[in-house]
């Protein structure tokens, strides 16, 4: 578990919350929501006030779209990770914000196994992360079952990245499909440090959180302080089930995590996760899937709790959905349910299905398992439903167009 110290950084932290929040340098653009669902993908284009939303879609109707991302380096390339129930997984690519799509010529796929050895097969690409700002056209992908892939040509061709896909230790930590989440074990939360393209994180459900400081040549586990299901040994990496890990853009030394077993914060170079979810109300608990961080204030984060008791219903606790927000790094949490149904609402929000934009005040967005898209233009103070009757929503990304 030894770690190499990170490179010195030139990061300057603003001294006060007000200064942090006033630090945006560009005028706001129009927000577009990239919505990936079990039956296709949609784009919702907001007006300047983020009040009305123009629908564009469906794209790939009938395809299971796990994630759709915009390339922040060119502002126009979209990648969408897709498959259908019958066809193999692929990645679609658009260089004109979804007007036309082409398919990756070499989608993520495991290496072919030697004769007589059972090789693994990518069931679906689950997670997409654009590479570092200095590495144009580089992307990372995480798959189910767990695999890490990289493209250096904007998503046209993909190759296994680093040694983890075939490393015996990592394969043991990944477990088998039998150990995984209901629709397959996943590699997700691929994070590139904005200060250093060689500093990477990823997480596996199951299989823990991992870090590389040498561009993926070597990895170390980052699970200290994380709890596992009662009765299991937290020193066994397989038992760790991080659901979603986010790095604060305003402070890349701070990470937040929603885990199968609670909400955590980690301040680097420390390596001990702190269970800040203990401060959540007991009747709600601190189980959930999404984790969202503020674009300019590393003390602010949001979660969307779900019922993780008994048989894990994976619904809103008590049928009363709410986001929870902290303004102090997890010391206290505030319930944000204004505008959301007050009873008998049994949906929840998946790990990629909640996002923040970068405007001021921050807009928050989430998509539900029941196909509703909700938005708040004021950091969660007031929610409104902007789309209904979509298929089950797997991912929501909020991007801004100039």
């Amino acid at each position, binding site marked *: 578990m030894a770690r190499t110290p990170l490179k010195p950084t030139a990061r300057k932290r603003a001294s006060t919350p007000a200064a942090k929040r006033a630090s945006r340098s560009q005028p706001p653009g129009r927000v577009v929501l990239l919505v990936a669902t079990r039956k296709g993908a949609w784009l919702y284009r907001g007006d300047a006030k983020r009040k009305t939303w123009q629908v564009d879609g469906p794209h790939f109707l009938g395809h299971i779209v796990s994630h759709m991302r915009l390339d922040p380096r060119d502002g126009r390339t979209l990648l969408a990770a897709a498959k*259908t*129930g*019958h*066809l*193999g997984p*692929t990645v679609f690519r658009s260089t004109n914000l979804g007007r036309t799509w082409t*398919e*990756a*010529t070499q*989608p993520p*796929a*495991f*290496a*072919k*196994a030697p004769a007589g050895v*059972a*090789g*693994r*097969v*990518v069931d679906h690409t689950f997670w997409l992360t654009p590479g570092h700002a200095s590495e144009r056209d580089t992307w990372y992908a995480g798959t189910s079952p767990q695999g890490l892939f990289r493209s250096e040509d904007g998503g046209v061709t993909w190759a296994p990245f680093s040694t983890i896909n075939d490393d015996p230790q990592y394969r043991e930590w990944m477990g088998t499909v039998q150990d995984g989440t209901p629709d397959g074990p996943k590699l997700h939360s691929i994070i590139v440090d904005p200060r250093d393209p060689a500093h990477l994180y990823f997480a596996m459900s199951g299989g823990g959180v991992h870090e590389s400081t040498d561009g993926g040549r070597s990895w170390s586990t980052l699970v200290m302080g994380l709890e596992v299901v009662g009765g299991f040994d937290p020193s066994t990496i397989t038992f760790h089930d991080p659901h979603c890990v986010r790095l604060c853009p305003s402070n890349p030394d701070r990470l937040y995590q929603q885990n199968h077993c609670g909400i955590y914060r980690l301040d680097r170079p420390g390596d001990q996760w702190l269970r800040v979810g203990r401060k959540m109300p007991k009747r709600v608990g601190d189980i959930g899937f999404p984790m969202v961080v503020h674009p300019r204030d590393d003390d602010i984060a949001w979660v969307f709790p779900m019922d993780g008791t008994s048989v894990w219903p994976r619904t809103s606790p008590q049928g009363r959905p709410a986001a929870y927000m902290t303004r102090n790094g997890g010391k206290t949490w505030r319930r944000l349910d204004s505008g959301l149904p007050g009873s008998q609402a049994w949906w929840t929000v998946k790990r990629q299905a909640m996002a923040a934009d970068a405007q001021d005040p921050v807009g928050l967005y989430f998509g539900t398992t029941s196909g509703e898209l909700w938005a708040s233009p004021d950091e969660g103070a007031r929610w409104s439903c902007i789309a209904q009757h979509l298929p089950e929503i797997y991912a929501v990304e909020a991007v801004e167009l100039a």
Partner: protein
Amino acid sequence: MQVLIPTSLRSYTRVSRVEAAGATLGDVLADLDRQFPGIRFRMLDEQEQLRPHMRVFVNGKAIHDLAQPLRATDDVSIVQALSGG
């Protein structure tokens, strides 16, 4: 030889029957991929196995082996078993 393409793969071929050549089923699928890039990986996984739900019939008989020899006069049907929700 003539190859029948299922509806789920017609985004690649645009038509239901296409012409492809090859001495084996594997060769024919490779030829299809040359003509319609990407189509092969959606039928066949990286371990060279037909994906679940994909079926290939040659002259009405189910074939599972990519090394199966084919003749130019054979009639190949790629069929997708319907299932799921």
